[in-house]
Structure formats: structure tokens, C-alpha cells
């Protein structure tokens, strides 16, 4: 029943983008106007393969999924060629296309739902919620006078699970990099850093953490500096003081710093 000029068909097909092999199958079933429950598998397999052959090398990554489906189609086609069982046994033998048909139908339904969601997305993009939050008169006046306003941030100002997971993923990558660094033996020891910190303290009388953690150094060196600082603090050789919570940390000589 599907009498389509194969040339036109393949030209059109190759120009189209499909989300995957099932998307392509849905398209072929629809454009050929075949009965989904009685798919002419030979015709569909042929057109499917034509499309796969037309796929450009850039789409190699997706090609695997398409090739897998092509193999399935060819297997079904072969099964269809096997001699049919006698009439009495017929209902006991499953149609080799059955599983595929169910998948296509299910996928097609989700395409419809996706379409439905797309319509909702479009409609929703045309309406806008209230923009300004500090709406009561006094608050607005305060705001105009330079008052602070809560950052609007993400929905509800809440951190989402995605935020949390992203933070951890970033830390893991950082740890990975640090580990890579640590594999090489460090050409610097804690003693080296202790001497470096002492020099700083003696020279200036006091210093800050910012000055001790040299930006140009690899991160692993910072850890050495950090351990050296803790060591010296424990020995009473220096004291660490922070002005306010996020302020600069100052380093002073400690009581035992007499040498």
C-alpha cells in the first residue's frame, strides 16, 4: 500500500534529524501510512537502512543505537520469512514484530505527551509572575533609601539537590587533581615552610595568611604551609587571629618565639 518514490523518500529522510531509532521508526510508520499492528517489515527495514547509510560521520556517536535497531529489524525480517505454522498453532506463536510494535506504540505515546508539554511550555512562557518582592509600602520606601533586599536567587531561595550534588562533584574533581599532584614527591618539606614562615614573622613582626599562601604555588604546597602553621601554633611559636568571620587571618609571633 505504501507506494513511495524511493529516491524522494531517501533525499527527504537524510535531511531530517531524529531523536533516535524509535523516532525514525515512528516517522516511517506514519509517512508510509502502514498499519502499526501489521508493519511491512521489509519495506520499513529498507528505508531504515537507507537513513543509517546517509548518516554523516559526525553522527557516529548516535549511529550505534541506529545500527542496533537495524539489526533487530533484519532479524525480524528473517523470522518473518520462516515457514508459517499450521493454522491450529497460529495463536501460540508470537508475531516476531510484537515486541517492536509495543515499543513503537509506547514511544509514540510519549511523543504525544512531549508535544503536550511543549504546548504548556509555550503558553507558560507568555505569562510572568510578580516581579518585585518588597511590595509593602514601607518596605519599598526603605528599599528606595538604600535598604538591603534579600537576593531573589532560585525558586524559594532554597538550595536544590542539584546545587548540593554540583558542589560535591566539583570537590571530587578538585581532590582528583590534588591527588595527581600528590603523586609526585613534593620538592618542599614542612621544615622548609616553617623556616619560610619564621622569616616572614621575623622580618615584618606579623603577617597574614594571605601572604603565606603564595598564589603561584601548587595547591599541594598550601597544604604543607597549612600543616607548618598548625605545627607552629601548637608549639606556641605563633598565634592566629581573625578579625571577623570572613576577615583576614593575622599571624603573630607566639610566646615561645624566642629563638
Amino acid at each position: 500500500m505504501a507506494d513511495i518514490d524511493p529516491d524522494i523518500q531517501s533525499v527527504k529522510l537524510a535531511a531530517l534529524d531524529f531523536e533516535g531509532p524509535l523516532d525514525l521508526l515512528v516517522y516511517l510508520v506514519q509517512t508510509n501510512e502502514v498499519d502499526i499492528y501489521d508493519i511491512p517489515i521489509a519495506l520499513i527495514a529498507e528505508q531504515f537502512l537507507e537513513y543509517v547509510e546517509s548518516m554523516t560521520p559526525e553522527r557516529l556517536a548516535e549511529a550505534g543505537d541506529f545500527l542496533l535497531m537495524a539489526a533487530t529489524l533484519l532479524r525480524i525480517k528473517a523470522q518473518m520469512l520462516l515457514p508459517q505454522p499450521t493454522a491450529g498453532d497460529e495463536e501460540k506463536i508470537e508475531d516476531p514484530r510484537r515486541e517492536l510494535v509495543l515499543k513503537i506504540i509506547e514511544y509514540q505515546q510519549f511523543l504525544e505527551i512531549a508535544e503536550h508539554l511543549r504546548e504548556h511550555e509555550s503558553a507558560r512562557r507568555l505569562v510572568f509572575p510578580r516581579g518585585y518582592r518588597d511590595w509593602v509600602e514601607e518596605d519599598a520606601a526603605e528599599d528606595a533609601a538604600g535598604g538591603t533586599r534579600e537576593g531573589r536567587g532560585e525558586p524559594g531561595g532554597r538550595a536544590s539537590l542539584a546545587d548540593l550534588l554540583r558542589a560535591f562533584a566539583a570537590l571530587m574533581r578538585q581532590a582528583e587533581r590534588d591527588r595527581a599532584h600528590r603523586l609526585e614527591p613534593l620538592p618542599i618539606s614542612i621544615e622548609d615552610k616553617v623556616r619560610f614562615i619564621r622569616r616572614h614573622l621575623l622580618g615584618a613582626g606579623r603577617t597574614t595568611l594571605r601572604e603565606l599562601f603564595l598564589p603561584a604555588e601548587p595547591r599541594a604546597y598550601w597544604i604543607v604551609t597549612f600543616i607548618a602553621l598548625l605545627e607552629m601554633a601548637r608549639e606556641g611559636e605563633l598565634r592566629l587571629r581573625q578579625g571577623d568571620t570572613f576577615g583576614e587571618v593575622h599571624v603573630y609571633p607566639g610566646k615561645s618565639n624566642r629563638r
Partner: protein
Amino acid sequence: MSESRDDAPPSAGEIVEALLFATDEPLTARGLAALVGDATPAVIEDVIAALNADYLRERRAFRIEPVAGGYQIVTRSAFAPWVRRLRASPPTPRLSQAALETLAIVAYKQPVSRAELEAIRGVSVDGVLRTLVERELVTIAGRGEGLGRPLLYGTTAHFLEYFGLTGLDALPRPEELEILFADREREGEA
């Protein structure tokens, strides 16, 4: 400046309007009722219907819409061209077809594993899932029982808000779709 109207106590309608005006998030009828004081959710729904009738008659540029199980006051879509000009930042991009398809499956099959999503779509959903989790449309809904206890995914409240859906049940039921869901039970006989 002049608050020189009569001093009648504010009506429930006025209070509901003030509350909906004061936030950009949907408020539930129950939450509104609690905030108003002596009102039931049913009264709130009547009040909202009356407000919407007012807005229509008075040609206000906004209306109250049911969304994500609550109510939100939004501009009418006719004003989108002007409001868009106002917004300096470009709107968030539309979801890709792949993202929409995956989201559709998550919405119906939740909680659902990546493997199930891939079986239905016939392609990998790794990148798409990441986008959906990052855009807070999908979240982790637990772990499955199967081998390796795979992560299961589900939709978020933001999903409903993004699409302006009142709830998951606002999605078309399978029987409303043109093609019926395949009768999976028959598979057992084979």
C-alpha cells in the same frame, strides 16, 4: 499616599489579592485560608473566582492562575511582548525535544531508572538527565530494588510550575491519548 477610604476592615478578597501580589510563588488555597484567618479553602476558591471575574471586567493586565497545586498571579499573555522587553536577561532556553521526551517518560513512570528511560527512548539519556536535574525539573526519587540498586528519578514541584500545570493529574490520561497504551498484560502469555 492618602489612605483616605472608608475604614471598613479588609475583605477576604482584598487580603487574598494582597497576598498573591506579594509573592512570585504559587500559594495553596489552604495556605491562603490560614493566612487570611477565618476562611476555608473553599471560600478562598470562591474569592479567587470573584477576583478573576473582576480582573476580566476591569481589563486588568493580570489574572490568577491555578498552578502546581496552588494559585499564582501572572500577567496576561497578551502583554508578553512588552514584559519581555523589560527583562534584561534572555529567557531560559526552551527544553530540547530529547529533554521533553525524557521528561514526559519521567512524569508518567516515576520513580523511574535511567535504564528504563533508555529502554523506552532507545537512546542514551545521560546528558539529558543532567540537564533536567540541573534545571530542577527532575530529582532523585530514591533507589530501585534491582541489580546495583539504580537511582530512580521523579519530577519536582518546579516541573509543575515550569509548565503551568496544576498537578501531575493535569497531564493527559493514557486513555485520552490518540493511541492507547499497549496492553502489557498480554505479554505474560507469550
